[in-house]
């Protein structure tokens, strides 16, 4: 779908920076202590990634993270084989290990390029700004009350599970309401930090009240000072629309709507 982008171009992600810094570090380790030490460092790094993905599975219940855990564990085992046991390409076990590692890399690539673990924050922010053309600014730190939805607590719980599984929002439950937080920061997107402070959110109370809050950081992601009240209203309406779709068993249409924007799965 072609549309006019309302968000600024994304900045370099921390993952890219981590790779940029990790590569020279690995080269230095290899230069000083040899190739096996470098593979040992890779094993340690990838094991930390395994733990991170495992944490994210428990936070979101997205099964793609379990696939990533398995894939990265394979890479860890491969790295340990080279580092600790000195496996070379002449060893007979190197062939199955190599095939398994290549398979693991394909699994990782498939999950990444199919946006299975991509947070949809930018898609949501683009969608809510799409119909807005006025630039009256009007930022405020108050939440906006959108109205009510007709939903039982069970339906809201089921909906929240759907949203977290599909990386649309991280959900929190407190004081008789469910908060759907649009994760923007790297630390929260990767489960390294909890809470929805300083993030945009939509809340559904057990009474059906819908409130919306857009953080200053997310508002500043827009290229222009789009009318803040319209952005907030649209965000609330979008989540109400998502809930309606999900209630009718058309949850897949939510993902279709987000995927239709065709944002870059890696950089956005």
């Amino acid at each position: 779908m072609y549309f006019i982008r309302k968000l600024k171009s994304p900045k370099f992600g921390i993952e890219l920076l981590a790779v940029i810094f990790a590569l020279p570090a690995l080269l230095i380790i290899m230069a000083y202590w040899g190739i096996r030490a470098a593979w040992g460092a890779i094993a340690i790094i990838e094991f930390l990634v395994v733990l991170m993905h495992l944490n994210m599975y428990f936070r979101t219940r997205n099964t793609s993270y379990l696939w990533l855990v398995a894939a990265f564990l394979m890479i860890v085992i491969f790295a340990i084989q080279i580092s600790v046991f000195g496996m070379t390409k002449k060893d007979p076990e190197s062939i199955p290990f190599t095939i398994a590692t290549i398979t693991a890399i394909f699994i990782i690539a498939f999950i990444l390029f199919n946006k299975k673990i991509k947070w949809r924050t930018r898609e949501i922010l683009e969608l809510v700004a799409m119909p807005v053309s006025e630039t009256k600014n009007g930022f405020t730190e108050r939440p906006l009350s959108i109205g009510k939805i007709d939903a039982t607590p069970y339906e809201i719980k089921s909906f929240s599970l759907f949203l977290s599984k599909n990386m649309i929002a991280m959900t929190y439950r407190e004081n008789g309401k469910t908060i759907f937080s649009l994760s923007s920061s790297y630390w929260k997107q990767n489960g390294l930090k909890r809470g929805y402070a300083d993030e945009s959110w939509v809340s559904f109370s057990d009474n059906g009240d819908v409130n919306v809050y857009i953080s200053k950081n997310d508002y500043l992601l827009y290229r222009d000072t789009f009318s803040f009240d319209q952005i907030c209203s649209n965000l609330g309406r979008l989540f109400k629309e998502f809930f309606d779709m999900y209630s009718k068993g058309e949850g897949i249409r939510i993902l279709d709507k987000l995927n239709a924007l065709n944002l870059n799965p890696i950089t956005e």
Partner: protein
Amino acid sequence: MDFKEAARLGSYISKDYTEDLFRLLATYSSISASEAASRLDLHVKTVQDFLEAMFDLGFLDREEVYEKKRPYYRYTMKVNKIVMDLDLSPLFPSEGKNDQTSMRIREMKDSGARFTTARSDQYISNIAIWIGKGRERTERRINLSIPQGKFLFHLPFPSADFQSISSIMLKAEVDTSNTSEILDIVDALLEFRVVEQENNISSK
């Protein structure tokens, strides 16, 4: 008695020497400030101020007396009972004030106010406003009643259309019996430039 007179009376009645001074005034046919001060071992200015205040409030009579070179006043008790009758009815909002609910308002752009939402419900618990400029800026926090908090929760955003106070109250499910406190907080926020009124915008 109005608030100022009541405050003046209250400030003197609360002193620990008041009863002794009144006892002297009841005992003596007339007494001067210096006589009373020396009798009670108080500073003459203290007694002077007290006697003048009681005269202004109508509880004492005074007579100018000439002795030696300088004239002075002698005070006589005029009443044997003091009743503080303070009429609060002027403080109650008039019917005309409640008609202000047709005023159309919204939050002012870049007001700098920080609204704190109550965790458990849909209302604002307090507002923090920055007052002053530069290094003399201070933060003023206003704690809100629940009707006020509900009202402000539904206050239109700075870029939204103006809405009348009555329609905001309806949306916020605030009872009309709370109108006077809603108008009070709106007046305060207009003064602090957190809220703007539609008429003020169109006149610019």
